[in-house]
């Protein structure tokens, strides 16, 4: 009873707002004024590359970089501030940070076990926190509303802040970090034999020495598999980069477009979606790095045994 009494006016106001948005937006402008250019909001511009806000001694500081720094500062304030006075019986905010970190650690420990979770955790947690908070902070209203006008223009042409995920350099940097750490973990656990998985020429040499064409053929296949393995590790760089970049950029464009088209209410749904996407992308990035790390430190041995077994045939 009470709920329906509140629900009805809320839905009514929301509907009215949406209708107003549609009328003053491009659809209404096109219908009543004959041109979408007359819409309440300017037509959004889609930039693939980030825009330079200012130069710092010859280095172009872009709006995405500023956003990354903002994210970094916020994250540091939250996490360092939240854990400054650690107590065994946690205070409220410390508890929130602890729960967050404990959940992340639990997730990793669940996948790779306590032993590796300890060494994987710092890098992976930082990736997760950076990706997620970067995406979430980018949903703040200052992002689309603060910027600079180009000369002769009446709308923002260069935003002061732009989600760092939409700058391909950020996902690429994270992908490189993920790649470097995965390979480093593999090397640390297995030392030089780790590289043997990629350069499998032993079969070919054996075949040539024993003068067996069949063995040479299998050896060649084995070498090819090794090559594929090597390439697949580098392909991860691309998949990591473009997955995050694509999702973040698409989210930004969707929000721009929906805000431009409907103005009120409807973008809310997409804001919720983007909150979800930020978390999910962070989880995917972290989870995949975790799994690759696990593969690098564990399954290697089994692969070698298989390999040895194949070589015995």
């Amino acid at each position, binding site marked *: 009873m009470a709920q329906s009494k509140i629900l009805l006016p809320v839905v009514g106001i929301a509907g009215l707002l949406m209708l107003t948005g549609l009328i003053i937006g491009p659809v209404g402008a096109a219908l009543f004024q004959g041109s979408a250019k007359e819409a309440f909001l300017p037509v959004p511009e889609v930039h693939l590359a980030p825009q330079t806000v200012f130069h710092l001694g010859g280095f172009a500081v872009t709006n995405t970089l500023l956003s990354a720094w903002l994210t970094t500062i916020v994250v540091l304030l939250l996490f360092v501030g939240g854990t400054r006075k*650690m107590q065994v019986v946690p205070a409220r905010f410390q508890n929130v940070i*602890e729960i967050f970190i404990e959940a992340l650690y639990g997730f990793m420990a669940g996948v790779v076990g306590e032993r590796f979770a300890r060494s994987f955790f710092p890098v992976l947690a930082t990736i997760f926190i950076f990706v997620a908070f970067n995406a979430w902070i980018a949903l703040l209203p200052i992002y689309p509303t603060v910027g600079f006008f180009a000369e002769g223009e009446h709308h923002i042409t260069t935003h002061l802040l732009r989600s760092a995920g939409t700058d391909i350099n950020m996902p690429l940097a994270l992908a*490189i970090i993920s790649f470097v750490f995965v390979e480093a973990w593999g090397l640390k656990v297995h030392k030089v034999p780790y590289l043997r998985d990629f350069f499998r020429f032993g079969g070919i040499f054996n075949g040539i020495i024993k003068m067996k064409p069949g063995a040479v053929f299998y050896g060649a296949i084995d070498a090819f598999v090794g090559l594929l393995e090597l390439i697949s590790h580098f392909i991860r760089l691309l998949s990591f980069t473009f997955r995050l970049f694509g999702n973040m950029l698409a989210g930004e464009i969707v929000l721009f477009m929906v805000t431009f088209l409907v103005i009120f209410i409807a973008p809310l749904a997409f804001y919720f979606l983007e909150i979800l996407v930020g978390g999910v992308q962070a989880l995917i990035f972290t989870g995949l790095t975790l799994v690759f790390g696990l593969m690098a430190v564990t399954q290697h041995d089994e692969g070698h045994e298989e390999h040895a077994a194949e070589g015995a045939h």
Partner: protein
Amino acid sequence: MLLAPLLAEETGIGALGIDVGSLIVYLINFGVLLAVLYFFAYKRVLGMLDQRSGRIKESLEEADRVREESQQQQASMQQALNEGRQEGQRVLVEARQMAERYREDQQASARAEAEAFKESARDEIRQERDAALEQVRRQFAILAVTAAERIISRSLDADAHKDLIDEVLTQGGALSSSEGSSGG
């Protein structure tokens, strides 16, 4: 519209905005974030979690230990109680046995005493009787002598004589019959 810059000759993949400078700045940024978070957040939180789990483990072990101890204590107490009860039982049984034995002893000695008393009584009676008999016999002899004296001192009246003897004999018979009944 989106594909145009990608396909354009001079922009191409560069339209994505890949920039080595930015890339390096992002890498450095991540490194700084990682280092600061590692030293000022993860270490603290994980250390605290370890400390807490250690403390919980410790207190659990402590609780286990205390419970075990109390169980042991209870068991030993129970054992002591049982021992005490058994000891009491034993003492009781012993006391009862002792009492029984004492009673039997007492009974036996009482019986023996009674027997001895009876025996002595009987002896006394016998002696008394023998003495009495002896006395009777002596008196009888005296009586006989007296009778004889009388016979002798009196005349030799045959009838008188006969009466006297009868009299004495009757007295004697009465005595002997009374002696016979008491001797039985």
